[in-house]
């Protein structure tokens, strides 16, 4: 019986993309037919840039869009890394726009896995581990979600002990 093609969506973000791409490669070992979508949705830093100028009255400078040449480069880097780790999979890249949490949720519809980076303090285990948008995606995604430490997780000793008044102690 022919297995259906495995589909993995990777949410590519600055800082976490390498770990997420390598996790995606682990999910499709030697799978020739697997399809991996690398999705990057830039944040609203450009809006911030434009709006900061609104306070400069009278300066009359044209509000030109800021070139963001590095954006597609992030996707190109992610693609190159995945190509290295999982030679035979079909890779597609997507530069998304719009509300990031909804774009990611939508793109992962009917996928087998969605790979997202863990957020929060990387020096200890514990909350907060998910940002607002990641929280939304996990709450609303239809597929299995894989959460990845961006770098090797700190030791279990960083988990706080049971409180002294906990009855199970």
């Amino acid at each position: 019986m022919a297995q259906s093609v495995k589909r993995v969506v990777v949410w590519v973000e600055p800082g976490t993309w390498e770990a997420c791409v390598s996790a995606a490669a682990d999910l499709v070992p030697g799978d020739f037919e697997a399809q991996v979508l690398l999705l990057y949705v830039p944040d609203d830093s450009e809006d911030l840039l434009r709006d900061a100028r609104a306070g400069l009255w009278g300066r009359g400078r044209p509000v030109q869009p800021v070139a963001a040449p590095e954006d597609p480069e992030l996707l190109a880097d992610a693609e190159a890394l995945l190509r290295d780790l999982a030679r035979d999979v079909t890779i597609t890249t997507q530069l998304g726009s719009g509300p990031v949490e909804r774009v990611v949720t939508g793109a992962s519809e009917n996928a087998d896995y969605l790979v997202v980076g863990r957020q929060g303090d990387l020096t200890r285990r514990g909350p907060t581990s998910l940002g607002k948008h990641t929280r939304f995606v996990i709450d609303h995604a239809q597929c299995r979600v894989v959460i990845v430490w961006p770098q090797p997780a700190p030791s279990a000793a960083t988990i706080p002990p049971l409180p002294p008044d906990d009855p199970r102690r």
Partner: protein
Amino acid sequence: MLAISGLFLILVLAFAVIRPRGLPEAVAAVPAAIVVVVIGALSGHEALAEISRLLPVVLFLAAILVVGDLCEAAGVFRWAGELIGRGSGGSGKRLLLLVFVAASIVTAVLSLDATVVLLTPVVLATARTLRVPAKPHMYASAHLANSASLLLPVSNLTNLLALRASGVSFVRFALLMLLPWLVVIGIEYGVLRWRFGSELTLRGRPVTSTSTRLPLLPAIVVGAMLVGFVVASSVGIQAAWVAGAAALVLAVRALVRKEVSLRSLGGSLNIPFIAFVLGLGIVVMAVVQGGLGTFLGHLAPTGNGLVSLLLWALLAAVLANLVNNLPAVLLVLPLAAAAGPLAVLAVLIGVNVGPNLTYVGSLATLLWRRIASDHDHEVSIGEFTVLGLLTTPACLVAGVTALWVVGTVVLGGT
């Protein structure tokens, strides 16, 4: 008469907020200024006096903006971006520190315009090259454009407007504002480090390549300009001449090297901006003399104690947040000037730091943008406002307290 000139002021401010068809703000301000003089709300003599008071100030800023633009054309900002990118070694925390240093220096020396328009895009590009989240660094740059504009008279148009009213020299201004400047930057740094703690722990890739070298002549000219400000102030020459000379040297260099065209140089000089400030100044003066000054006088604190200084800063910050810091400083300045130099400097802390409270500098602009655009800005407004609430009140109180300490204890009753 107050009602008529008040109406014209509201029209001028509304036009500046809405910017119909992207027309320059001067399109409303200049006719309004002519009208208030024609109807006699302000005598021609007073209007001319106001122009001769404002003109050197605006020319000074215009020259500084040209210097900033020419530094950009020469590659100074590209060089700075590569320097902080390389210095960060791919660490978000170190990048933030370097962005703080760069934004504080650029704002202080080349004015907040240079930080907003020239440095912040470079910061964004640098964060993206390093593959680290850009947000914390963008907020740092946007915030410091306001809060790091306390140090020198040239750092902010509001400072230039207040310099003469304060009656202090260029050097004394810097001495009084040095501690408030450092304290405010320190608070911003602490809050951003704490607020974006998790984003900043993410590591990017270090960059080692350097293609840009510091353009030598622009760096020397800017350094010489700073020394020139100090010298000019001590021998009684208008600092605008120094900035103008620096702009001229850089303009000749850029034209010879074909880095800019004569036309874009004219755009940098920005005549409509000069006309706008002059027009706004005249309309505001008509309103103040028509009776608003007396009204605000009732609100104005008395004395030079810490509490009065805090109240001055609060009044200025509230006005700046309602409309914009430019009309705010023009309105409050005549009153504060009567209360002494420390009151004027407290007002400057209010109008310079205050705008960080609202996303785009003032409630009026914020509301207008909410009406005019669709709602895809909601997320950043929430984020920016939280950051503003965390930093602005603390910066105001600590900055004014530092000013009070320097002004009364260290320098002893300026």
